């Protein structure tokens, strides 16, 4: 009943492009399309058109005014993206033309699709499972090309396939245990726990592998949350401006100009960064600035990456040491800025200080010049190594980019660990099935094979904030 209406939208995005597609979906789609489209001889023809056959002709409005030369295709339900009767009109990609055709579809009875509504209908009509629907939403909102590639994989069902395979194997173990409980005469559990132990190890490994991609997956999708730290006037804002390619932060020679926190999203050859520039950290009486410093510390706490900028033209001091202590347990890169000036601090000296503060680790040190724009390439390579083991190209491996999926995988992993414990503790076989079942159900949540009303609600609320 809430899907009785027929909806329309520009499916290709309302920006100038080569081709634009107007998609009309719902019970009236064909008759609306029939009104909207005339064939080469000026006759309506979509009503009797074969499904999935391209027709050449013209789009017209209510008054019969020709809007554009177009191709039209009818896709009869359920063989369409939404699973409903659908008409797609391919027109020239000018914003004005697309808008006019869309408006004409409204004249004939369609209404504008809500954000994500095509996807929602596709999901409701069983054309895609939950993870696929979520992937579509990710595509819509995807910030960078790698995140997009991963979403597309999920859309193709790679994640679904991997999860389904694991689930199938878990199910066959549950079934075996239960069959043996029911028919002990014909099905023996002798030696079974040893077999299940091996199987569990294997399943744990596979779930872990998916899980491991979750963090880098999230970073791909959302970008690396990055905080720039350093003493005042070492060139933090200049670095940010360099990365951004524009003068956004106020840069002066007076220490303490950046009073507020700046957040910017940048993309360096496919790696997304959400960069926070902070007020230079120093002891200060200025209250406004003090707030900035506290917040910088908070941001540093939550960040995926900390860039510590030092001015290599002035000697290191205790203050550097103090701020650098914030790098503890954090992915960090140290940038020796102003390499265009006289080098007072060498990389070696910096390494010594790092060794002094963190005897057990190394932190990459790169010389850069924010002013001249040198060292950026090396910086990119270092970050790539830090987060993506050097490989930041997407090899169509499955990458988990969704927090809900990550949670479900984690729960499933935990349950499989419980199975492992039960086997090690010599529990009777029927105990295994409790945790096997939990693992099975959790994985089912990812692909929507287990209905969880929280998820349904979440998904639907998500549909409404998508494009």
């Amino acid at each position: 009943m809430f899907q009785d209406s027929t909806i329309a939208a520009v499916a290709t995005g309302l920006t100038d492009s080569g081709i634009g597609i107007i998609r009309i979906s719902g019970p009236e789609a064909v008759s609306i399309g029939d009104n909207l489209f005339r064939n080469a001889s000026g006759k309506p023809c979509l009503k009797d058109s074969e499904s999935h056959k391209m027709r050449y002709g013209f789009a017209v409005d209510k008054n019969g005014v020709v809007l554009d030369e177009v191709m039209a295709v009818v896709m009869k339900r359920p063989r369409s993206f939404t699973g409903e009767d659908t008409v797609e009109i391919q027109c020239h990609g000018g914003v004005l033309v697309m808008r006019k055709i869309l408006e004409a579809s409204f004249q004939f009875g369609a209404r504008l699709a809500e954000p994500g509504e095509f996807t929602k209908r596709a999901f409701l009509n069983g054309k895609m499972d939950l993870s696929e629907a979520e992937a579509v939403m990710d595509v819509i909102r995807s910030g960078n090309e790698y995140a997009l590639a991963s979403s597309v994989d999920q859309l193709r069902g790679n994640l679904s396939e991997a999860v389904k395979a694991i689930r199938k194997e878990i199910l066959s173990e549950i079934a075996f245990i239960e069959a043996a409980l029911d028919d002990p005469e014909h099905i023996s559990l002798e030696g079974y726990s040893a077999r299940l132990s091996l199987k569990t190890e294997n399943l744990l490994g596979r779930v872990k592998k998916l899980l491991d991609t979750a963090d880098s997956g999230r970073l791909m999708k959302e970008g690396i949350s990055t905080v720039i730290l350093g003493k005042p006037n070492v060139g933090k804002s200049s670095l940010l401006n360099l990365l951004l390619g524009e003068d956004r932060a106020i840069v002066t020679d007076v220490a303490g100009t950046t009073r507020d926190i700046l957040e910017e999203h940048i993309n360096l050859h496919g790696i997304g960064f959400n960069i926070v520039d902070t007020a230079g950290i120093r002891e200060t009486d200025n209250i406004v600035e003090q707030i900035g410093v506290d917040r910088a510390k908070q941001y540093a706490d939550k960040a995926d990456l900390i860039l510590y900028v030092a001015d290599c033209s002035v000697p290191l001091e205790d203050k550097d040491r103090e701020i650098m202590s914030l790098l503890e347990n954090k992915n960090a890169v140290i940038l020796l800025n102003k390499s265009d000036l006289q080098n007072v601090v060498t990389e070696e000296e910096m390494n010594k200080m790092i060794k002094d503060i963190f005897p057990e680790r190394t932190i990459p040190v790169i010389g850069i010049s924010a002013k001249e724009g040198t060292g950026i390439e090396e910086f990119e390579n270092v970050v790539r190594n830090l987060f993506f083991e050097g490989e930041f190209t997407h090899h169509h491996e499955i990458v988990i980019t969704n927090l809900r999926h990550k949670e479900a995988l984690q729960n499933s992993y935990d349950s499989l660990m419980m199975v492992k414990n039960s086997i090690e503790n010599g529990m009777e076989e029927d105990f295994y099935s409790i945790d096997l079942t939990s693992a099975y159900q959790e994985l089912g949540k990812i692909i929507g094979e287990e209905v969880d009303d929280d998820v349904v609600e979440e998904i639907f609320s998500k549909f409404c904030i998508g494009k």
Partner: protein
Amino acid sequence: MPEIREKTDVCVIGAGHAGCEAALACARLGLETVIFTVSVDSIALMPCNPNIGGSSKGHLVREVDALGGEMGRNIDKTFIQSKMLNVSKGPAVHSLRAQADKADYSREMRKVLENQDHLVIKQAEVCELLWEEDSNSKKKKVTGVKTFTGAVYECKAVVLCTGTYLRARCLCGESITYTGPNGLQAANHLTDSLEKMGIELRRFKTGTPARMDGRSIDYSKMEEQFGDERVVPFSFSTDPESVQKDQVSCWLTYTNEKTHEIIRANLDRSPIYAGIIEGTGPRYCPSIEDKVVKFAGKERHQVFIEPEGLHTNEMYVGGMSSSLPEDVQLAMYRTVPGLENCKIVKNAYAIEYDCINARQLYPTLEFKNVSGLFSGGQFNGSSGYEEAAAQGLVAGVNAAMSVLGREPFLFDRSESYIGVLIDDLVTKDNREPYRMMTSRAEYRLLLRQDNADLRLRKKGYEIGLISETQYQELLKKEEMIKNEIKRLKETYVGANREIQDFLVSMGSTPLKTAASLAELICRPELSYEVLSEIDAERVILPENVTEQVQIEIKYEGYIARQLRQVEQYKKMEKKLIPTDINYDQVSSLRLEARQKLKLFRPISIGQASRISGVSPADVSVLLVYLEHYNRQQESERGKSSEGL
């Protein structure tokens, strides 16, 4: 022509295990009840196996007892051997099984019925149900029953418990007789009346093995199977001391390649394989023909020789039910070690009968299209005495509730095997006689046979079948369990010499720091019982209390995790689907799902999700629809209250 015309509250048709429980429940709740049977000598007859209980069926008996049913007490009075099965496995699958003296069982149940106030036994075949149509709702309502002799009993509710008697026929190879089990009269008239009311019937079959003259069996070639040394009674109200008595033995032997050869060579003479039988048989209680065909690689199958009673030398040949012709049966049985010279008293046979697809029932076991009409037992497409008794009890209770104008009682999957049984019957597409099995209960660690009273006595009390005294006893037991668990969790023992010596002597690791007694019970090699040595403050508690304490502590983690699964499950059960829902309005349902939902008319989202052909996506659609529907209702209510 003058005819008998009587008035009563409830009519129960059939006096098997379902009918007895249904009639007793109604009468005990104060309703005037008539129970009809084609033969008073066949009350609570056990026409197949001579035992009550067994894997998962034992759970059902205990649940029936916890709710105030009779089966548990009756077998405690009449058992001749008793055994707790699966004790080497986890507590969820422990199950009690007792051999019954069949004649005794039947006689004792008849005695209970005869002495029950408000209950009348009537030997008569019911041929017709009487009903009327509500002029407003157009819904049928049952008004009475009519017997073969023309007598009419007007009543407010009817419980159908016809078992395997409707249009029954028995098959032994090529020979067919039109009788019910054990040569009893079949009921050939009621089916037409039911069909006229719009009830759909179908045909199922089941079978039973031969009975042999015990004197012709050579037991020296078999393994003797003893009962338990300490017998646990089925009923929570039976004094455990009263069931410690002498027991008889059963005997185990095996089929062999020779047996299988004979069966294979004569399969064309089996009515099932020859296509004479139209009914579908139970996969889980297969005939020996089925086993030989299905487990072709198996060299032998178990055969249990079990006594039918103390005052007969008839022996039941468990595991070898068959519908092969007489001559093949004899040849086949005689290949089994110990049965070489056997004499058959009663041939094995298969029986075919009319029953229903239980999707026509609500979980209350009332027909969806006829109010006041309930059904239980094999008529609903199940198999087994215990399954029958459980349904009979529920159908009887809800028939009584409908007459009394009280709310019906529902049983869900997370609280009892009864709930699993009924939900499976009314929700799933069962194509063969339904047998209870451990694996069907997904929350089985919670649904143990040992805690059936803790799970269900309160419900029995609310229904009115459990007395105040019994209920107070339950509360006392609960209290004792709770307090003892608390004490064990709060009592710490230090890492002192005495404790460490004790632990080492038990093969357990010494303590590093102090530990609670509860923590020690969790160790696989320790138990509540052995810890008595280091538990100075312990007071002696009843065995049924310490059993619960031990299980709840030892398996606490597993129980907690299973409870979380139940929570998830209950969320969906609580989302009720309005009875007047129009599935044609839920536009995005797939066609198959729409058809199934219209057919089953589930009462909740949870039930809907278990219907085969309804996918998770369909359930999501329903969830969204319901949300939408509820909001609409709410805003309408808001409007109308504004109007006031």
